[in-house]
């Protein structure tokens, strides 16, 4: 279970951190509120999940890059708003379906997933609405959103790799995800990249602690203060 809790917990922790970087930079005041809301939900989930494994702060602040188990998708830099929304769409649809399965089961994550699935439904709704607005908005927003979907596509395959201790129907997850994302993307007048045969689909080894270069810088910023005062309480 520790492996699974770390994978899910790190996903939530890292995505929450990235969303937190938007504070004070969002395109409209309502999005300052919305993005912070999602970041807070994810941070709450991360804290619950990491606490299943050990001390939440030790895990967040004192592990090195190679020990983080999040998927590479969530660590990708924010980029423009379209890129953030594409990341949210890919991730939140996945998380919604996954937590739905976990909540319906009787495994160790059922209680937590049961609570979180409602939060995640909102995250998904938020991402889907913005995908529609950006895809079917202006020519510029359409182009940006398409580019974002294309660029991040390569990091989606990893979401469906098996994780030790996480008993889910991965085929259902993957098919449900592909159907749901395709539906929204097409309604938004956008196109999903061609699928597994692009090769990109198969990229990513975050669950094995292989990350992308920007992640190290993210961790440096996140951990610096904590590491500067060994043993201190805050």
């Amino acid at each position: 279970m520790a492996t699974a809790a770390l994978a899910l917990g790190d996903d939530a922790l890292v995505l929450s951190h990235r969303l937190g970087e938007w504070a004070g930079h969002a395109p409209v005041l309502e999005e300052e509120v919305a993005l912070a809301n999602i970041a807070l939900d994810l941070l709450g989930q991360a804290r619950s999940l990491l606490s299943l494994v050990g001390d939440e702060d030790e895990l967040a602040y004192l592990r090195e890059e190679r020990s983080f188990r999040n998927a590479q998708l969530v660590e990708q830099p924010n980029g423009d708003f379209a890129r953030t929304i594409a990341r949210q769409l890919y991730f939140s649809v996945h998380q919604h379906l996954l937590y739905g399965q976990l909540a319906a089961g009787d495994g160790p994550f059922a209680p937590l997933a049961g609570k979180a699935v409602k939060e995640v439904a909102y995250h998904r709704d938020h991402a889907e609405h913005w995908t529609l607005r950006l895809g079917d908005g202006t020519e510029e927003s359409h182009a940006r959103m398409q580019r974002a979907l294309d660029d991040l596509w390569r990091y989606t395959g990893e979401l469906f790799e098996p994780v030790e201790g996480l008993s889910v129907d991965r085929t259902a997850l993957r098919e449900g995800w592909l159907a749901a994302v395709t539906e929204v993307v097409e309604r938004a007048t956008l196109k999903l990249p061609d699928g597994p045969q692009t090769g990109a689909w198969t990229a990513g080894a975050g669950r094995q602690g292989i990350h992308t270069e920007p992640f190290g810088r993210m961790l440096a910023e996140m951990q610096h203060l904590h590491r500067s005062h060994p043993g201190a309480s805050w």
Partner: protein
Amino acid sequence: MAQEAVFDAAVAADERIEPRDWMPDAYRATLVRQIAQHAHSEIIGMQPEANWITRAPSLRRKAILMAKVQDEAGHGLYLYSAAETLGTGRDELLDKLHSGRQKYSSIFNYPTLTWADVGAIGWLVDGAAITNQVPLCRCSYGPYARAMVRICKEESFHQRQGYELLLALSRGTEAQHAMAQDAVDRWWWPSLMMFGPPDAESSHSAQSMAWKIKRHSNDELRQRFVDICVPQAASLGLTLPDPDLRWNEERGHHDFGAIDWTEFQEVLRGNGPCNDQRIGQRRRAHEEGAWVREAAAAYAAKHGKATA
């Protein structure tokens, strides 16, 4: 003049003026200016604290800080809505902020240099804001007064969190204690300046008092704030950086040292440490977000739905 008499009587009777009521143009203009400045302060005020979200030293503190910055965005929303009830939209006000025609509180032109600054802002800056704002809950203009009730409630929460953050540092390691003291040293005087110039030099005060937009003078509120802070600083185990600070039995208040109004004027004039940075980041966020707002508007026009 019947309208004006009705208005005056309502104000005199401590009744609330509502958006559809008749009101003097100058009253409306004063309110719009004050509410806008307050709204601008909320959204610019997100920056110095957001500067530490990504470096918060524990996940609990990170959650608290994120929620606080989010609340400030929320306050901005209420306040722009309150201004809207007076006939001035958010876009117009933001435009005035970005072009420098409207101000925000000068306190946000100081940098947050350490984690303890987050605590000092909560304790002192939010504390000063509350002292200023509590009387506004009884302001004669209804929507503003109601927004202030909600805002003050959240801000006292923030103020307590700031105090608690500083307390943890003050009781922590030597380095943490020093960090807390340093933050208080840097934020104390700018916080006192938040109440505005001395009464003798305050320009808008008299009319605002008559209209019951304002209910206490700058100096009264400043004194109230000092009197609140002194015992709190003692409980924190921190020193306020003013050698002249002492209890005056006769006045029943604390005496305190002279404020450096030159610094205040410099910061107000745009020469503070972060004026360019704050307004620059605000403008950049707005400009870089233009295509997003346009997309939302275009989508709404096509699909007949409200924008984000």
